[in-house]
């Protein structure tokens, strides 16, 4: 999957300015940046939710998982109905497919009859991932999917992302403001600042030998728990 020279403009304001990123098949590319850096706009453009200039090649079906699992599921729709929205299977096989998708994200099949309000934040985020997987995407865009979750739940969602990538060979564009989280799940890291891509390379290289000034300041600001 290749993003080439992607630009998004809102009136005279350029939110994303000529960004090119390549996501190899089955690879996870992490995208970091602060608020206003254009990373979420890039996610929406890639997912076809905002108009853009430039080219996106090699991924026909793109699905996105949103930051807030409390807002991304219709409160009046059962979990099963939400997940079934993306499923293309004929009606008779639909229920089995929904169960399979819920199984993929380690949720029991009974969850299908429940409503979002009965689930925890982590469970809702799993449902949102299952719904996206139902459309058999070539690329999954994960926009800050753990930042609304509690720390104790975040770990299990990150593990799920890693597992899905291994089991399904899923390509993922993983967006987060948290460098530690991005470092944990990604093979390569892209850093955005002011709408521009300022650094892009393999994770170890970006984290250990950053070349751009901004990447360095971002790395320095990551709060660290000193392990004596």
């Amino acid at each position, binding site marked *: 999957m290749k993003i080439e020279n992607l630009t998004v403009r809102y009136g005279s304001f350029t939110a994303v300015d000529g960004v090119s990123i390549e996501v190899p098949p089955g690879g996870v590319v992490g995208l970091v940046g602060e608020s206003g850096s254009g990373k979420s706009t890039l996610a929406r453009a890639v997912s076809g939710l905002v108009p853009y200039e430039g080219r996106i090649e090699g991924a026909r079906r793109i699905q996105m998982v949103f930051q807030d699992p409390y807002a991304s599921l219709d409160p009046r729709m059962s979990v099963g109905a939400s997940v079934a929205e993306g499923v293309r299977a004929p009606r008779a096989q639909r229920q089995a497919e929904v169960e399979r998708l819920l199984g993929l994200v380690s949720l029991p099949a009974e969850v299908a009859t429940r409503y979002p309000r009965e689930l925890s934040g982590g469970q809702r985020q799993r449902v949102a991932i299952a719904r996206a997987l139902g459309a058999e995407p070539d690329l999954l865009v994960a926009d800050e999917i753990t930042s609304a979750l509690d720390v*104790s739940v975040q770990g299990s969602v990150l593990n799920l992302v890693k597992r899905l990538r291994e089991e399904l060979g899923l390509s993922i564009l993983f967006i987060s403001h948290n460098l530690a989280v991005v470092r944990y799940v990604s093979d390569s890291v892209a850093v955005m600042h002011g709408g521009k891509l300022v650094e892009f390379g393999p994770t170890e290289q970006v*984290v250990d030998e950053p070349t751009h000034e901004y990447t360095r300041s971002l790395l320095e*600001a990551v*709060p660290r728990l000193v392990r004596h």
Partner: protein
Amino acid sequence: MARLPRTPPAIAGAFIVTLLVVLAIIGPPLWGEQAELINAGAILQGASAEHPLGTDNLGRDLLARVLVAGRFSLGLALLTTLIGAGIGIVLGALPAILPRRAGRVVTSTVNALVAFPGLLLAMFTAVIAGLGAKGAVLGIGVAIAPGFARLTQTLAASVAGADYVAAARMLGVPRRRILTTHVLPNIAEPLILNLTQAMGGALLGLAGMSFLGLGVQPPSFDWGRLLFDGFSRIYVTPEVALGPAVAVAVAGIGFNLLGDALAKAASRTTAPTGKSAGEVPPPAGEPDPEAVLEVSGLSVTFPGGVRPVRELSLTVAPGEIVGLVGESGSGKSLTAAAIGGLVPYPGVVSGARLRLAGQDLGELSEQQRRKLLGTSLAMVFQDPMASLNPALKVGGQLAEVAVVHQGATRAEARERAVDRLGHVHLPEPDKQARRHPHELSGGMRQRAVIAMGLMGTPKLIIADEPTTALDVTVQRQILRLLREVSAETGAATLFISHDIAVVGELCDRVVVMYAGRVVEELPVEQLATGARHPYTRALIASLPDMETDRTQPLASIPGRQPSPAQVPEQGCAFADRCALATSRCAERPSLVSYGKAHSVACWEVDS
């Protein structure tokens, strides 16, 4: 739908509407005959024992006619409302499925119609449709449609922006299906509520039309028609007009009151009523004279016996930065609110001894307490806009503190405000003071709030997730500023956060909360490797950092934290998520000292 609030207007509304419905059902069979009974011997009479509201020009009893007309009046009003709502909702929903250009045309048409006077629209339609009930119903129906269209449009627009609609679009769900499965069900509730009020309006409108002679024509009669007939006799026998007038007014008021109450009930979830936990006496024990803040036995209770904070004790020494960590729902923010006297209604703080700067808050008068909190306590919240008035300039807001609590003059206060803004490293403080909050960036606003706290001489700074909404590089600056302020003023700081890494970087001591209780208290040096409580350890293990082994799965805690209403009264609240849990955990472990400045509430630790 939420239950109706038990306020006098709500009760009155429900009562009147019930009465009207009963009247519509039993009216015609009970009094129908009497209402049509022509009596040539009793024409145009005033009130008498036989005819309490008098009779009309054919000698028919007016009371019976008013009671019988209820069904027709209400039926017409219902029909009118349904027509209005039907047209309105279709018009309002159309832009969501039409092509963009056609959608805009519909939207502007609705806008134009909303601006057009309703009564004119009604009369215009009624005249075209012909005199009589049909014309009036169509007329008033058309007149209330634009309001419904506008409401539908506004509500639909808010739902259309929701993430779940974006998700459905990405999955390729057609627009028409998005409208029927996502948008309409989610806006149905406010629309239905609005129907009740529209019903009241339609009733009044129809009566108005009939009264103008444009509505119901004889021999049919509704309340408006009766009013029209009686009106010419109002100077001779006012009671003949009074009956239908009162009926129209009461019905209109009834529907409006009920609609209002329903809307209010839907917009807030009423707190469950029920037993509140019994008063817990303040705990005994000598106060610590050194501590800036001493909290013991603090509980926050909501109606229904929900206790988000349970018998919490905490001390903060001068110059010390104490971190209070926990997941959302652990009660950490309510603890801060209780200290600042800001627990939201209907929460109750009970059993607490709260000492701030050596003074027992429970023993002070309201005025003394305000003064003490106003000058010695500074609070910084996650959203700086919560502490700043968007309509006022930053400098003026800061100066306010000095004017109110320290009796400074305007000029002195302003000078101090600029000085304080400079103190928190705002560039060109003089210029920033003249700006409105929205002209500052998030980080600058948070600095301004801290500066506001420094207008007095704070003994304690409570910072509730002050950096959660900020970028990491700005977060770092704010953390540095908090450290600097604490070192310089000697103020103690209570820093509340869900982020254990941030707490580890800033604080001297860490207090870990789970399900409303403190489960561990420890010096920060021991946080990473010396934590003893299984919850604290799991929390630290599940946090990825820049050294985490990427080939290993992250630790995570199964299950979820019980909500405040579900916390077990007996036993350890963490037990069912805990790998070390034994039968002993059915009894709640208390916080036991485990080495210097370290205490843990867990049975597995002391062995």
